[in-house]
Every structure is written in C-alpha cells, then in structure tokens.
C-alpha cells in the first residue's frame, strides 16, 4: 500500500509534465517524479523495526570488526541509500540546467507558455 501511494505521487508528476503548458510547471512535474522514485527506492530497503545502517560500538562482537547477528538481521538495506544519495545531488544539477533553459527561453520569447513558443518559432 505505501508503494501504491508512492506510485500515485509519480503519476501526479507525470500528469503535470505531460499536460501543463507552463515551462516551470513541467520542471516541477519532473521534480515530483524524482521525489517519488527516490522515496520508492528507499522504501524497498526498509524493514520493520530496522536500524539505520550505522555501526555503533555495541554491535561489534569479537576482534576484527565482526558484527553481531542482531545488527545484521535488523539493519536496513544500505545499497539503495547509497545510490539515492548521489541521485538526489544529481537532481539538483539537472534542476539548475532545466531552470537555466527556462530563464533563457523567457528572455528570448517573453513567456513561459510552450504553445506560444512553438508558434513564434514556426
């Protein structure tokens, strides 16, 4: 059920990116889709009563950094977290790129309306 709500968020973003006429609204729709995908990936690794994947001193048993089976069996998945961490930062870079395209288009045509822009060009 939380997966379905997450997918609903993705669909809202898709609707915004496909149907709206305002360029900034399209950027907002793409951002909403990014949030939905990041949330979904993190949710895949969650387990009930899980711990954050950070080792504290009580979790270490024995020499050489052997971890207790309690920690191994209750830690959430660190792999999606590591990949989403970089994906979030990249989404900021792509947002800056999209917004700079919007600003330049506004300076050129004086509007954010994509139908107007199409008409002026052709």
């Amino acid at each position, binding site marked *: 059920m939380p997966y379905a709500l997450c997918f609903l968020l993705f669909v809202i973003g898709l609707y915004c990116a496909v149907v709206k006429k305002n360029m*900034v609204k399209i950027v*907002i729709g793409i951002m909403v889709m990014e949030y939905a995908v990041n949330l979904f990936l*993190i949710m895949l690794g969650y387990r009930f009563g899980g711990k*954050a994947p950070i080792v504290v001193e009580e979790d270490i048993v024995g020499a050489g950094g052997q971890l207790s089976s309690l*920690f191994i069996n209750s830690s959430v998945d660190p792999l999606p977290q590591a990949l989403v961490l970089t994906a979030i930062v990249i989404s900021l*870079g792509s947002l800056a790129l999209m917004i*700079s395209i919007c*600003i330049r288009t506004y300076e050129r045509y004086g509007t954010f309306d994509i139908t107007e822009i199409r008409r002026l060009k052709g």
Partner: protein
Amino acid sequence: MAIFYILLLFIITAAIIAVETKNLLSAVICVGAIGFGASLMFLFLRAPDIAITQIVVEVLGLIILIRVCISRELTFISGPREFFAVVVSVVIIFAIFLAGIKVLETLPAFGTPIFAEVPDAASQTYVEEGLRKTGAANLVASVILDFRAYDTLGEATVLFTAIIGATVILRKKTKKLLEEPDV
C-alpha cells in the same frame, strides 16, 4: 506504520496543490513542502544520510526555483492544452497507473526487504563485511566511497556536466561575441 501514511498523504496533497495552483510562486513553495516531507519520510525510513542531503538540496533547489519565478510577469498561464490531447494523455496515464499497481503486487510486502531473503545478495555482503573490509562505521559511506566508488565517480561526472551546461546557457559573454560583426 501510521506515520508513513500520514507523511505520504501530506506529500501527495502538496503535490496536487503544486500541480494545480495557478500562482507559480505558490507552486514552488509547495515543492518545498514535498521536499521537506520527503526528508522527514527518509528520517523515519532509517536513512539519516539521505534526510540531511535532501534538506540541503531542497533549500538550494528552492532558491533556484524562486529565482526563476520572481520578478517575472506573465507567470499566470491558464487553461490546459487542447481538450482532446489532454483526455488522451490522462487516459494513458491512468492505464499506466493501473498496470503499475499490478506490478507492485509482485514485490515483497512493505517492511520486508528483498536482500534479507536472498542469502548471497550484494547488500547482505555490504552489511556483514562493510566494517571489516573498509573500516567505515557508516555502511552507506562504505558503499559509495569503497564498494561502488566508480559509480560515485561517474555520477560526479554527470553532475559536473549538468553544471557546465547550466553555466554555458546562462553565460552573458557569448551573446556579446556573437553580436559583434566579423572582422
């Protein structure tokens, strides 16, 4: 468990307002609400690193988004596109939603991660051996900086390219050079 539903409904409400409001500045503020809601959600999903990164990125992204819609006239664009196209795209999106719900049923239930059921999954190795092999107490850091360092390098390249693109598009200097007549 209830906290996840509350936060998800909050995020979805903010998304609907951001999509449907006419005023561009309110839409941008609602994007901020989505981002901070997502950050809280990451915190409750036991991902503190993601939550911190999300807050920082959200603040920067809000500044960028407000930059575009402040002091711009004609930010009110009313009315959807052609009626037929809107109906067709809404029908297609609804079909995608139904198909996606069907696919999500094949996943294990929320709260039971896939890697726990597969004994030799990559994540299982990272959890068991992360501290011993890399010496990092934070297993996320051990994955991004050691086990998958090439991934991180590649993603840094992508980020660099995106920033170079934004800088080139926003640069004022090239325009002047283009306007000057050829010598």
